[in-house]
């Protein structure tokens, strides 16, 4: 097991999680490759996300719009903004071809907004590209364990 790589990707993903919990969205947007996609699928058996209905399938443009919606103050479902704390663990490097690293980990998010505490568990699968001594996110797939159940509005970035 390449523990140094594991430590590197873990540190990168923890940092990303910390940015999202603390609203550092501009920095977060900079973590991505130009063609990177942020995906929250519905059907756990599906892998052709592009040709399937998802909760989110965001390219660079849509990620920017999503951030703007969260901070713009025009949306009643995100004002007040939800507070989140996410815990990331169980990191495993699935593949590494020298350029791209695929990592899977577990995420538990606690969300609090307006008298209500909610909990979302998900498998996260990242495709990371080595860049300038660190990584860029080329793909992030958030597979909620209850993705095919009814959900409530999620007014933040998973």
């Amino acid at each position: 097991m390449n523990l140094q790589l594991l430590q590197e990707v873990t540190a990168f993903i923890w940092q990303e999680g910390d940015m999202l919990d603390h609203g550092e969205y501009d920095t977060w947007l900079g973590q991505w490759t130009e063609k990177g996609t942020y995906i929250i699928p519905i059907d756990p058996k599906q892998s052709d996300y592009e040709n399937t209905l998802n909760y989110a399938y965001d390219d660079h443009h849509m990620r920017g719009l999503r951030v703007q919606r969260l901070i713009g103050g025009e949306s009643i479902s995100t004002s007040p903004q939800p507070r989140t704390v996410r815990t990331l663990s169980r990191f495993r490097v699935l593949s590494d071809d020298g350029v791209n690293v695929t990592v899977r980990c577990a995420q538990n998010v606690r969300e609090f907004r307006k008298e209500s505490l909610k909990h979302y568990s998900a498998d996260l699968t990242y495709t990371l590209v080595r860049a300038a001594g660190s990584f860029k996110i080329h793909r992030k797939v958030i597979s909620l364990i209850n993705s095919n159940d009814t959900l409530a509005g999620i007014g933040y970035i998973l």
Partner: protein
Amino acid sequence: MSNLIPAVNLTVDPAALVQHDRVHTSLYTDPALFDAELQKIFHSTWVWVAHESEVPDAGSYKTTFIGKQPVIVVRDRKKAINVLLNRCRHRGATVCEHKKGKTNSFVCPYHGWGYALDGSLRGIPHPESYGDCIDKAELPLVSLRTESYAGMVFATFKDDIEPLEDFLGAARKWMDLFMKQGAGYGIKVPGEHRFRFPGNWKIQLENTTDAYHFPLVHKSFLSSVDEQTLELFDFVKGPGYVEDLGNGHSVMVMIPELVDLEADLDKPIPERFEALAAELRDEGIDEPQVRRIVRAVGGSGFNLNLFPNVACSMAFFRVLQPISVTETEIHHSVITMDGGPAAANRYRLRLHEHFQGPMGFGTPDDSEAWERVQKGARAGEDLWIMLNRGLPGETPSADGLVSDVSAETGMRAAYQQWKKMMSA
């Protein structure tokens, strides 16, 4: 299937709770009224259960609910669509727990009674103990009366109500128009967003013909679209209209130029569709069909509300399911062109994700507004919900009544049907 046990003893007269321009707050909050609605509305009229494309082949099925009763919608070997109560005739267990799938039969997991796709009881394990005291022909899965129009499948517990087509009445021509967004390929429902909100089902029913809320509640969505789309959605002061179509159905035309998607095919392709049009041409699709697809890809310019539980809403089906007096489940079923070009269908999928669902730019704000209605309605229990917007300009039309695009005419239509059914 009309011998349901009357479970409701209302102490209030529902007719007194609906006036022509307002409804009483208790319509959102009274559990006794909710129980009465299940019986007098959801168990007494045509309720939408599926689009035909959701059960394409023999053995394809989906499970859903009529009111709070679990049902299976399944296509049998003769290609007929059956709507069956999801309840074994032996001791009551559900015979299917999957949302959708394909099967040869339904077998109860408790004692193994097996049913064919038309609901008939085929097999009882170890039948000898029954001797001659059981007749399989008497114990099929209960099959509901099922009829379709324009690919939309409805079922009812009542054998004695009017045929579906009569119930839909003037709404049928709008359903035909809505299906034109298939661009000649036909309509397919390949998935849906499902979410719940803590509020009464009628709050969602009203919303489908509520143009008034759009610029305010959906401000963040409007900030996220291009100039042309923004213009298109600036409809509150525009020439659109709301029309009462009878039997509780209504249509809200927001964008009149997008009522008939097969008209004006020779007009210039809007700039926002240029990239898609180029992609379609590159695939070898001829120019007339490119124009047809591009015109249909964004959906229709109207919302058609079909009482009590489904709407043809611009580019998707909006389905509501009552859970309790203060909770409702909503499904936003995405529509694609069945066998149409992948590029066009991707456009539709991304469009749906942009507005709909728990992470859409529209749905969560609707949901928040509805939640606020339910919460606020706990105050002032003797107050009324006002529905008088657009009354002064309301005039008779060929199909009913018509008023301006942000009139509450559609809501008034739904509540008049509610009153009629609840008073029956």
